[in-house]
């Protein structure tokens, strides 16, 4: 039976929520939506708790049939989408009926689209989360990416949700984003020239990009002693500099610990920008203070909270 049946899954569609916290000390990656903010907004539109499980559709290309009446929302990188051939908008509640067919074009603007359904995707939680961890083969729908013919159930719908997300609350994605970073924890291991390069030059996103992280290419960032450190914990947006001097930004499926120097970390409000970046795009890094970074985060969260109250 189910609520939604996959006709075409696209290159990579997985079930994700806000991730698996509390197990990183035992080496279990957080996983979860790469663009957490888009997932949260999608859930709020359809009346779910903001951390419910939804579909993360990498690069679009999904086709699915709604097996029962359900409200849904598309968020993340906007791409042409249709319900029974009629164009539908992102960031807005869509009332779908039994038998409707949803199709989402291949995305040219960004990497990830989220499809939230009222009630949330009903899969058994593994270690407290419904997120799929592909390398470990667990979580989500049978621990794997969705395939043609898979049918997914939804939980009971909670409340009406929101008709749409106002412009001011939508993430300001950019084709060639500037990512604000807070330096550390090992910026002291990088030469002055290396730090100058990192702060001054554009870096291009390579094709080596997945849910674990993305590799960039640009002027080499050199180490004072070498790229290896005694392995320590990683966090979302950590920027590692391995021996070749080319940055790696860690994302949702990152290993919990790593042995390369970490020059800086992308600040939380800019995580959606790196989550949506495509190969070939250029990125610049801009150093922010911790206070500036947290202030931007407080502003975003309080604007969202005010809107939800109104």
């Amino acid at each position, binding site marked *: 039976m189910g609520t939604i049946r996959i006709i075409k899954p696209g290159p990579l569609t997985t079930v994700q929520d806000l991730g698996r916290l509390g197990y990183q000390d035992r080496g279990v990656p957080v996983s979860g939506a790469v663009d957490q903010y888009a997932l949260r907004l999608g859930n709020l539109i359809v009346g779910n708790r903001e951390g419910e499980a939804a579909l993360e559709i990498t690069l679009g290309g999904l086709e699915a049939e709604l097996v029962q009446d359900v409200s849904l929302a598309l968020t993340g990188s906007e791409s042409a989408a249709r319900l029974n051939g009629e164009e539908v908008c992102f960031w807005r509640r869509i009332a779908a009926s039994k038998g409707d067919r949803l199709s989402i074009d291949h995305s040219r603007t960004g990497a990830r689209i989220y499809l939230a359904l009222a009630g949330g995707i009903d899969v058994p939680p593994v270690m407290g989360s419904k997120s799929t961890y592909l390398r470990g083969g667990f979580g989500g729908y049978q621990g794997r990416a969705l395939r043609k013919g898979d049918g997914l159930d939804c939980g009971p719908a909670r409340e009406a949700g929101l008709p749409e997300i106002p412009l001011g609350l939508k993430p300001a994605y950019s084709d060639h984003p500037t990512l604000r970073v807070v330096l550390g924890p090992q910026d002291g291991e990088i030469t002055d020239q290396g730090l100058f390069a990192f702060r001054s030059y554009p870096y291009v996103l390579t094709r080596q990009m997945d849910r674990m992280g993305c590799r960039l290419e640009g002027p080499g960032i050199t180490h004072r002693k070498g790229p290896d450190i005694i*392995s*320590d914990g990683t966090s979302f947006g950590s920027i590692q500099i391995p021996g070749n001097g080319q940055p790696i930004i860690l994302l949702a499926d990152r290993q919990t610990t790593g042995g390369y120097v970490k020059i800086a970390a992308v600040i939380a409000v800019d995580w959606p920008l790196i989550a949506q970046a495509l190969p070939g795009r250029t990125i610049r890094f801009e150093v922010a203070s911790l206070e500036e970074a947290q202030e931007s985060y407080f502003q975003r969260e309080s604007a969202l909270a005010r809107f939800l109250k109104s």
Partner: protein
Amino acid sequence: MEYEVPKILCCGDQALSIEFGDSIDPKINRKVLHLFDRLRARTVPGIEDLIPSYRSLLIQYDPLLLSTKELKTFLQQQLPVLGEVISKKGRIITIPVRYGGPCGPDLPEVAEYHGMTPAEVIARHSAVTYRVYMIGFSPGFPFLGGLDPRLHTPRKKSPREKVPAGSVGLADQQTGIYSLDSPGGWQLIGRTPVKLFDLSREEPLLLGAGDRVLFQPITEKEFGNY
């Protein structure tokens, strides 16, 4: 070396790391794990997750609920008591290992490198109680401290594409156990039939940082019957 005053380092705006020293040292690691235990034992609103490693503890937090300043003050308050008592008695977990043969294809090479017989490598490797310094690389993969210096062995020149789960390996001063089938460059000397990560168990992960591990050599038959 242990720092006189631990360093608190930014890891972005939603995590920080408290670092106790700059080497792999049981005394430093004990402080990390002691702090980890203390933070885990109580719920501090705003602390979302903890990652202990050899010499530091990463704390992921939500600055809306717990300001960086409050968190730093809270951490400073914990410091004076750290390491003065053994953090926990620690479980001792015995891991049966079939050394050599197809289970430990690098055993002959490791023995030759150290000018020992394979039996001597096995005896030395299984004589010590190891401490789990940290878990990382993949779910449940323990990095064990306490390897006999005479067994310190460099990694393989080129990593294997697939190392079977349960493989026991050596890499420099470390020994560890692969928890999932994965690529890897450690020297493989044996394999355990015990699953370090098994979702069908109520507690899927066998080991945690701070546990102690003892390897017990078993025969091929015992491995097969396990």
